[in-house]
């Protein structure tokens, strides 16, 4: 992926990126989902590379961005604390000003690729606001990693009073929060698109199976109950496509952060929920073979489970949506 320059997806061309628009990014991720390509493009391109590209540190942008885009330097984003949630109030690590810059402590949880990258973008809370740091000396970071359903991993990073020089600040307390929210929401759109690709592929595989598989002397796709269940999945997928593209269009039209958050949460909620429904019913359509790890379907099952959770699952996004709805119009 990096070889194709895709890590520079949303990065302007003048900064060696691809300069794609969000719609193109979504379309690409839909294809990635369809093919079940297990590349961490969301993490490297939309979380890490975008952080450096949109951050206010020219030196890092000049020195590090080309490496990230070319794939020579892999990076991830670490931010989430003990109390999980979707917005920047849930940042885990804490930064305190020191003589030589900043001292970081605390834990960032559920960091994708935690133990297999060269550098971290770390978000940390300070008394002035949220900062983002670039960190490629990992000697004082302890990592506790866990394997995920789809073969990838995530881990908790613990910072034990690590000192970071001012030159490593990507975003200062004034801009950190809004940058982090932006990074996360854009990444959620791509994850939703990947889920959409996943579910389409699972439906297609299921339809093929239903047409071919025979029981009681007839193709099982001829049973009305299975037909209607397939139709209901198809409808779910159509609604998910709408939700995804509404998010894309809203953002491309320059929505404010609140409107962006609402439309992104709607999309991620819908796509996560529909994704899981589709794989669950996909397993049922396939019968016993659908429950094995030996059949291609399993790739999509595992991947959907991970994507449906990554950057907030349906339940978390529904809760965020509820909060935004109540504050924006529920009481009006």
């Amino acid at each position: 992926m990096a070889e194709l320059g895709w890590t520079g997806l949303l990065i302007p061309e003048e900064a060696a990126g691809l300069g794609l628009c969000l719609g193109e990014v979504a379309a690409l991720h839909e294809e990635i989902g369809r093919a079940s390509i297990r590349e961490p493009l969301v993490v490297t391109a939309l979380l890490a590379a975008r952080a450096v590209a949109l951050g206010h540190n020219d030196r890092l942008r000049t020195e590090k961005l080309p490496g990230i885009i070319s794939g020579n330097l892999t990076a991830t984003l670490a931010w989430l604390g003990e109390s999980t949630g979707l917005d920047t109030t849930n940042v885990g690590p804490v930064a305190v000003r020191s003589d030589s810059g900043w001292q970081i402590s605390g834990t960032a949880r559920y960091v994708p690729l935690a133990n297999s990258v060269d550098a971290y973008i770390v978000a940390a809370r300070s008394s002035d606001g949220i900062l983002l740091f670039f960190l490629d000396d990992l000697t004082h970071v302890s990592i506790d990693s866990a394997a995920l359903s789809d073969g990838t991993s995530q881990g908790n990073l613990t910072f034990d009073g690590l000192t970071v020089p001012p030159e490593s600040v990507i975003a200062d307390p004034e801009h950190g929060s809004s940058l982090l929210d932006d990074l996360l929401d854009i990444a959620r759109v791509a994850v939703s698109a990947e889920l959409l690709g996943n579910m389409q592929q699972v439906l297609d595989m299921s339809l093929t199976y239903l047409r071919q598989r025979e029981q009681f002397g007839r193709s099982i796709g001829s049973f009305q109950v299975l037909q209607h269940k397939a139709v209901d999945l198809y409808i779910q997928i159509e609604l998910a496509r709408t939700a995804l593209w509404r998010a894309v269009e809203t953002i491309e039209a320059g929505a404010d952060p609140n409107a962006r958050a609402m439309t992104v949460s709607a999309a991620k909620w819908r796509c996560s929920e529909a994704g899981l429904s589709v794989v669950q019913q996909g397993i049922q359509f396939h019968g016993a073979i659908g429950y094995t790890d030996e059949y291609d379907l399993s790739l999509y099952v595992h991947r959907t489970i991970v994507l449906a959770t990554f950057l907030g699952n349906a339940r978390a996004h529904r809760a965020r949506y509820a909060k935004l709805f109540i504050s924006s119009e529920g009481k009006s």
Partner: protein
Amino acid sequence: MTEVDYNAMPDEEFRDMLRNFIEKECPASLRYQGRRVRWKEIKPWTLKLSKKGWLAPAWPVEHGGMGLDIEKMVAYHDIFDSAGVSRAPDMGIVMIGMLLIRFGSDAQKKYYLPRILACEDIWCQGYSEPGSGSDLASLRTKAILDGDHWVVNGQKIWTTVAQDATDIFMLVRTDPTAKKQEGISFLLARMDTPGITVRPIRTLGGEEEFCEVFFDDVRIPKENIVGNINEGWTMAKTLLGFERLTIGSPKFAMIAFGSLKELAREKGLFDDPVFVNDFIKLKMDIDDHVGTYRRYADALKHGGSLGPEMSILKIVSSELYQRVTELMLEVAGEQGPHLGPSNFGNASIDPLGYYFFSRPGTIYAGSNEIQRNILAKAVLEMPSQ
């Protein structure tokens, strides 16, 4: 009536024009109604629209319509739906008028179209028969040519507000020997023709929304056929196409949802997290349905056609409508089973009316089971048995 090229108007200006007119002229009693309003209630407002030349958005300008292109059509429906404007008995406009413009004889066009536009004629549709249900082509009402007249005998049912209609268009069997769809013709009749009897049917909601229409040796002029003899099925299919933007419209669900929101505010339900959770699930479904409806309408704009997508919209809109009214009935609490509107704080809302009125949506215009069969075959290419 000045001749305006609405299609040349900027979208927002066009929308504002309609929005302002509705706000000014359309009475509250015709907005956000959870029931089908009758002709006498809605006639004054309909005449106002007629006077403005805004009654027939899809008709060509030369026939007195607005001649809207698909983009403006979508906007037109969007504005009327969002404003919760009740629908008049508009089968003359959206169905038979459209069909006559395409297939009617010159005499038919000249006679019927102005009368429809002036609200002199109100049309109803004679399709279903007892026993035919979703299997429309099994209809048995027959018309036999006798000199200059068709003699019609039989019975129609589920004819929407036939008691208000001056005219009926219907499918009749003109060749009993032909196969199912092939011996059917498309006939027009005045409702006051001797031999036609109308019996209203009371619905669960207590409204006389449908009728039975009986035909007893009814003599109808020979020329009252649209298209050729025994080609009624083609006419019916064409008519179906005209409904493509209305049958799966989010209108009803949106109107009910507006009332649900009002009820929730009055009852303070937005402080209840469990209600909010149920409410936003419906909201998301409505948003995604509206979005999907617009996406499909966009495809029409760009020259695409709406085939089975119509089935998706029909399924989603009717089931969503029911879910909205089910939640409304439930959160209305002890007032849920009240007949007619009751007071919730400052609002007067009729949850039971909504609940009942949403029931037939999954049954009529091809039941949702039929729609799913269609999608399974036509889109998902599932094998027949």
